[in-house]
């Protein structure tokens, strides 16, 4: 394998892992409520910005990151409690529009609470690139990949081995039956928003040392994460991860081998092609099964 190809692959995997974390957040909420939460990108932004200002206030990085995740989780739960739950019974489209409104609100608030500048975050373990077979990778990229792996494993355990997780899965399969079996659908919704927000915040903190953070960073990461979730199949956990990594790799490879000007065109072209051939994404459930 040439050093050049290896460099593209490493770049693609790093950014792909971030897309995957954001995509997982989309899928969790979609499973619990059929809602596509367009404020997912704002969770990413709040995670990065909150840890930036907490570090600025003198807290050590691990504590600042943990607090930022807690803050974002609370924001996610508040969004569910005060906006989505109020409109329960409304059609899904209405709920989606509510999340779009929430994302604009959160973005505007971030511009006021913090500012509209771009901020750096210190890398977790230094900036010195590590050489791998002629290519280089930043220690922070290893953090991104490692944490994504841990998170995916953790989510698998949560959904397959714990009662809460199973309750959430049950709700996604059949809401009415779940309710009849004594599962509090309302609580499931609350947990799903909290969990998605926490995942988003984690992504925002991991990526900030590489890409910086700013009040509007959620727009792009939210969009790419959404595209990854669609590509992998909305609602599928493994699909979100696969979709994220695939999107990241396609972007890096097309920028390297074809043309940097058309890398987004190529990435989204492939997504369109996949969706035409497989309307429910790479690993999504066939929509026919849902009916």
């Amino acid at each position: 394998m040439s050093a050049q190809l290896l460099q593209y692959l490493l770049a693609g995997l790093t950014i792909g892992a971030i897309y995957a974390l954001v995509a997982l957040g989309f899928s969790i909420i979609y499973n619990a409520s059929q809602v596509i939460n367009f404020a997912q990108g704002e969770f990413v932004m709040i995670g990065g910005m909150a840890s930036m200002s907490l570090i600025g206030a003198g807290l050590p990085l691990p504590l600042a990151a943990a607090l930022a995740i807690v803050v974002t989780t609370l924001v996610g739960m508040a969004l569910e409690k005060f906006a989505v739950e109020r409109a329960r019974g409304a059609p899904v489209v209405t709920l989606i529009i509510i999340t779009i409104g929430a994302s604009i609100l959160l973005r505007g608030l971030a511009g006021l609470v913090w500012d509209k500048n771009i901020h750096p975050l210190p890398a977790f373990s230094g900036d010195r690139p590590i050489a791998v077979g002629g290519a280089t990778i930043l220690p922070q990229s290893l953090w991104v990949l490692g944490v994504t792996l841990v998170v995916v494993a953790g989510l698998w355990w949560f959904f397959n081995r714990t009662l809460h997780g199973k309750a959430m899965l049950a709700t996604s399969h059949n809401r009415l039956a779940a309710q009849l079996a004594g599962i509090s659908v309302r609580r499931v919704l609350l947990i799903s928003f909290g969990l998605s927000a926490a995942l988003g915040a984690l992504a925002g903190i991991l990526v900030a040392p590489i890409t910086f953070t700013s009040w509007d960073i959620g727009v792009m990461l939210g969009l790419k994460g959404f595209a990854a979730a669609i590509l992998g199949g909305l609602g599928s956990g493994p699909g979100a991860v696969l979709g994220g990594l695939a999107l990241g790799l396609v972007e890096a490879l097309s920028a390297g081998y074809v043309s940097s000007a058309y890398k987004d065109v190529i990435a989204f072209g492939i997504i369109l092609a996949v969706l035409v051939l497989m309307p429910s994404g790479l690993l999504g459930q066939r929509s026919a099964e849902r009916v």
Partner: protein
Amino acid sequence: MSIVCRFAALGRPLVAFAAGATLAFAAHAQAPIKIGAFLSVTGPAAFLGDPEQKTLELYVEKINAAGGVLGRKLQLVAYDSAGDADKARTFVKRLIEEDKVDAIVGGSTTGETMAVIPLVEQAGVPFISLAGAVVIVEPVKKWVFKTPHTDRMACEKIFVDMKARNISKIGLISGSGGFDKSMRAQCLEVAKNYGIEIVADETYGAKDTDMTAQLTKMRQNAQIQAVLNAGFGAGPAILTKNFRQIGMTVPLYQSHGVASKEFIKLAGDAANGVRLPAAALLVAKSLPFDDPQKKVVVAYEHEFESRYHQDVSTFGGHAYDGLYLVVDAMKKAHSTDKARVRDAIESTRGWMGVDGEFNLSPKDHMGLDLSAFRMLEIKNGDWTLVK
């Protein structure tokens, strides 16, 4: 109120006649000279409009405290166009028709400036734009001037420096924003005049978070002797970090778009060794004492920072130059007559502003040359002048 204003405006020529002999005593009785401004004080271009407005307010106050202009006070009529070309048009119409200003200084962005040019041309009001693009003054428009350096000058300054280092084949990488695209086009256009060949031309998206792929491609190209990044915002900082990460060793040039401490803060250690053209204001304190620009930029920096307790930016400097071009022209014309003021602005020669020495002419409505830019290199996280 507006009726009173209008009567006052009608009466102004008569008052001016009567007061001719006793100018000093009449200062309080006369209507003020109105300087109109429309700036992006809020919105996405607030980093331009905010220091511009603060500069205008500060210096109008100072000029008035020193007795005003032609024995009359200055009055600043400023609107916030928030980076929106439509709003800019509305406000300029209001400045011309209702406020009846004597001159306009403003237009933080190229978009806003271009949108109002037909209005000022038709009404015949001297207008000094604070936006960057070459198109504002090329072709020359009778009533339109501008103070900031252009992106073409930035390209030229960089190419001159490259030539001095025996670099002739370079890779160009630019973002997809308006600033980036415009500068890319200018660099491509003037490159051959300086014997520079652009052997790779890559781009990245405005919000891209990784450019290692594009840079790796350039690293594989053995011809490339230096890389030039035309960009603005977070992109160039990410690119600079990526550049070091993949271990590229050729010189890296950035544009004047990143000439702020923000860039060094974001790119960290990776910024060391980067060269870029920038206004003298950025290195005011380290300019040699015999530098003709030193006095002006140090004074401006001191005034601005002691008043607002924030760092000066080159954008505020553009507003300083715009205001003083107008004020000096009024003094030279001994009048606020719009046509005479316009002629006086156009005949400004050898005037040292914050942006550089202005030598305007009927063919050049900006009047700066390459000496207005300084080539800087970042060393130990700070700007140093390249000798």
